[in-house]
């Protein structure tokens, strides 16, 4: 695997996104990434096309013969679909968040360390999903942690390295239980802002991590 392969979504994650099987929190991070990544978007289209072909070959289930009439009745009644309300652009710490995050609620910033702050991101309809904004000051290394499930991190500003690759804004970092514990380290002089979602609680092994986990609830 080349370093650039680490900056994009895996086939498995794109496939889960394509068929709607990714939890809302993880799907949010994917939407933010896809909005800025042509190559992942092209791969998503491919996996959606596979979904379309597979749907076309599914065996039929019995449906009510009256269903078509009900559909025509709704069409005739002309009930309009709900309008998408315009949602203001969210900001966090003066930073304009990606449009794909519209509708989310951002909680207050909390310090777990002088160089490490986080804010909870509430995804509408999926408030228990573990999604956070993470702001890490230059030079700080996040605690080493393993993963008990899929973890997606989108870099919004600044940059960091985890030993596999150097990540810049727009890059997606995907990690799961097959990955050894990694310790992301912020590079450059700029603070690093990330949007992260995890499927299951992290297994944080270091001392800071053990402090970190109950505080952050992830």
């Amino acid at each position, binding site marked *: 695997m080349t370093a650039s392969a680490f900056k994009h979504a895996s*086939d*498995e994650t794109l*496939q*889960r996104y*394509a*068929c*709607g*099987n990714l939890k*809302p929190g993880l*799907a949010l991070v994917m*939407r933010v990434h*896809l*909005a800025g990544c*042509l190559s992942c*978007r*092209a*791969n998503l*289209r*491919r*996996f*959606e*096309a*596979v*979904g*379309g*072909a*597979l*749907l*076309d*070959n*599914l*065996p*039929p*289930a*019995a*449906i*009510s013969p009256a*269903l*078509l009439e*009900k*559909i*025509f009745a*709704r*069409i005739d009644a002309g009930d309009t*679909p*709900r309008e*998408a*309300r315009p*949602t203001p652009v969210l900001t966090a710490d003066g930073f304009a968040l990606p449009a794909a995050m*519209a*509708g989310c609620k951002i909680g207050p910033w909390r310090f777990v360390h002088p160089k490490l702050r986080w804010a909870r991101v509430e995804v*509408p*309809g*999926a*408030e228990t999903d573990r999604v956070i904004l993470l702001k890490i000051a230059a030079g700080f290394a996040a605690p080493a942690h393993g993963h008990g499930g899929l973890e997606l991190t989108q870099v919004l500003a600044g940059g960091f390295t985890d030993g596999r690759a150097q990540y810049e804004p727009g890059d997606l970092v995907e990690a799961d239980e097959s990955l050894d514990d990694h310790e992301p380290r912020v590079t450059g002089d700029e603070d690093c802002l990330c949007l992260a979602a995890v499927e299951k609680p992290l297994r944080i092994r270091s001392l800071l991590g053990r402090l970190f986990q109950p505080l952050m609830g992830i």
Partner: protein
Amino acid sequence: MTAVRAESPTLDFAGVFGLGLGRRDRALTAKGRARVRAQGEEATAGAARAEDLAAWLDCVARNQDRDAFARLHRHFAPKLATWMARAGMSHAHIEDVVQDCMVAVWRKAPLYDPAHGGVSTWIFTIARNLRIDHSRRKANREMLPLSDWDDLDDQPDGESRVLAAESETRVRRALEQLPQEQKQVLIQAYFADKPQSDIARELGLPLGTVKSRLRLALAKLRVLLEDAP
């Protein structure tokens, strides 16, 4: 066979009884049909042809043609119901979501852009988004509806032209190249919304085998669909 094809650009009753049989299959003997049905998901010959689907949707978009819409409904509604059932949706909600999906197909028909993919793919994404909306609404929240194609407007560059060339026929051909054991896991991954460990248990396979079969299938499909002919 030719005669059967010639009479059917506008009429297709094969799907009336939910058999999902397209034009080509009506020329089959009764024994042949039974064989096609027995093959279930393998019955690629049992799908309506992509051109038919596009023609029907075009009639809906241009003329609000209800006959054409009924044909799309007969083709897709029973398959969508299968998907929702496999994804664990309760019986009471399956027809609601199928109904919402077909109403959306009627309303959005003029917005369908063949450059983005085939009709099956378009309906797949509509149903996917409605399924997500449905599960989020269960959480009792007022939700912003997800747009189809996720509002991701591709730039009109080389990439989207390549995508436009990825006809459903090509995707089907790519699927035919997968070993049966990979295809089985792939279908589960798409339509059964459950962890891979559950899929492994149901198929009586080790988890690692399921993971590697899915990984191989997806990588192969990606490569086959990247290389435009």
